[in-house]
């Protein structure tokens, strides 16, 4: 088990490295950091000066090595626009996105898992159809549209929730729902399929033959096994959410990493963009790694021997 974990960890590091290489190349090939830094009204000479001064004229691999070396020491460079260390800005903005992600995932799980279980227990009934309808809608509805509709309905017509800002936890309700519902169909489908699979298995028949109460059969025996792949999926979905929060944060004016990404994109703030993509990728990798570990932990067949 330990060897397994170490091997996965090694691969994870390699993937993170590749992501940083790809992102770095994409950024420097697509745009010109010197021009971005020099500003809009800069002349050719100004740009050239910036280029030489900050070493943007060096070969790309050299620039990358330099960046990577600094990054490993936690130095992600300076934000062109904010004139501060990127790592500091990231640290400030991270909590909001984390909270948003966690709430979004919680929403998705609270909605998807019970629905999936119910749909599996009562296939082809109204409950099942209701669950499937939610899944269908969830997969087809664009998140930004959903967010705007919610704002109109809950923010303006009903006046239940605040529209923007981050003054209280209420501010997080709509964004979490807007971000989380997209994961609901996948989780619900997996729960439903897993439960239906498990419910028809032999050990559930044994549990019933022992005279165990239905609730015990359902939760202790069935769900415990069906939930294993759902845990992995949830971790992966959380990774996606952390990466895809940019749209939601922009709409709801939340001060998280996503909106930071949005701002730095608009201002061509290279160092910030590079750092954000890397951090998000790292989180995703960490989460999938965690999902694997959880998977192995929850299944005694992997955990023991």
């Amino acid at each position, binding site marked *: 088990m330990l060897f397994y974990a170490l091997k996965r960890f090694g691969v994870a590091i390699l993937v993170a490295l590749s992501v940083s290489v790809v992102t770095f190349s994409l950024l420097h090939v697509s745009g010109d950091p010197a021009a971005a830094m020099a500003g809009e009204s800069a002349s050719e000479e100004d740009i050239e000066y910036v280029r030489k001064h900050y070493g943007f004229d060096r070969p790309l691999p050299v620039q990358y090595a330099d960046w990577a070396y600094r990054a490993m020491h936690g130095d992600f460079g300076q934000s062109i626009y904010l004139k501060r260390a990127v790592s500091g800005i990231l640290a400030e903005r991270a909590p909001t996105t984390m909270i948003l992600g966690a709430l979004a995932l919680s929403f998705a799980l609270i909605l998807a898992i019970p629905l999936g279980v119910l749909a599996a227990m009562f296939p082809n009934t109204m409950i099942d159809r209701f669950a499937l309808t939610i899944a269908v809608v969830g997969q087809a509805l664009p998140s930004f549209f959903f967010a705007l509709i919610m704002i109109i309905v809950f923010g303006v017509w009903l006046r239940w929730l605040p529209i923007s800002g981050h003054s209280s936890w209420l501010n997080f309700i709509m964004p979490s729902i807007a971000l989380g519902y997209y994961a609901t169909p996948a989780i619900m489908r997996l729960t439903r399929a897993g439960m239906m699979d498990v419910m028809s*298995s032999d*050990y559930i*028949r044994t549990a019933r033959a022992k005279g*165990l109460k239905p609730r015990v059969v359902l939760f202790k025996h069935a769900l415990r*096994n069906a939930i294993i792949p759902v845990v992995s999926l949830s971790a992966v979905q959380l990774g996606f959410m952390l990466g895809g929060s940019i749209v939601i944060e922009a709409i709801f004016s939340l001060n998280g990493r996503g909106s930071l990404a949005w701002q730095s994109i608009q201002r061509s703030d290279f160092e910030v963009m590079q750092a954000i993509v890397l951090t998000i990728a790292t989180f995703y990798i960490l989460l999938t790694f965690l999902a694997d570990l959880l998977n192995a932990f929850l299944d005694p067949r992997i955990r023991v021997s």
Partner: protein
Amino acid sequence: MAERILSVENLKVDIPVASGMLHAVQGVSFKVDRGETLCIVGESGCGKSLTSLAIMDLLPSKAARTADKLELDNKNVLDIPEDQMADIRGNLMGMIFQEPMTSLNPAYTIGNQLEEALMRHRNVNRNEARDRAVFLLEKVGITAARSRLRQYPHQLSGGLRQRVMIAMTLMCGPDLIIADEPTTALDVTIQAQILLLLAELQKEFDMGLILITHDLGVVARVADRVCVMYAGQVVEQGSAKQVFEDPTHPYTQGLLECIPIPGKTERGSHLGSIPGIVPSLVGDMNCCHFAERCPHASDPCRAEPVGLRQGFTEAHDYRCLLTPEQCADNLKQKVPA
């Protein structure tokens, strides 16, 4: 003298399928006494497994079960509320299934699964349940029982898992155990051990045992009474001695010809076979179910359903239009010169 544990009368199981109604079990009746082993024999698809599931009320939701009488320990268990039935399952009667490899929950230790079987029905704490589990594991021949409790099912072999299943069924000291082909999925060498074990335990705990199998060799070893099923019906029922020595129904005769019986079958003689296939049980069959394949069938056999009639003794029934004497004659003719 013997105490009646189980009475089943006219048990029927119907399952709606795409092409109509499948009459999987058609009017099956039998009884089991304390200390007695009843073997239900038949080929795949004859309805023997569904019969056992019907007794436990563990049929799939689409299946419909009816019976004139279903009594456990002389108490009616037919059409009782589910929660009462759940109190009886695992408590007064238990069941052992065919596939030990998948019949235990992979996520919990075997100790956990054994203990919960007892704690569900009795007011005991975990330590008491654990002691009983150890006691029973040793009874079924598992060494180092106490440390085994902490193991997971995937760490045990098939034979060991089946022993655990047996121990689990015994946790509450049931009056009746139904074993549905408990040895089919195991090695031949282990089969014998498990069967012997069941026989010993039955004597020791003074239970009734229903053993469902398609293996006549198994039946010969352990049965007190035999119930032969074919195409959803009981075609012959009697003491093991009766059925093996004087099989009456043509199907039973055919079955016994198919296997070599040590002591009876002569070296070099041909083993028989029963040509044809099992009829479909969808819809109504207004004739003898075995008529298509029976070497002695005649027109009356194909015209109307055939009922059970008494055989050579009171405790012996069979389902054929021929008299017992005619059947015995048929048998004599088959014995090679």
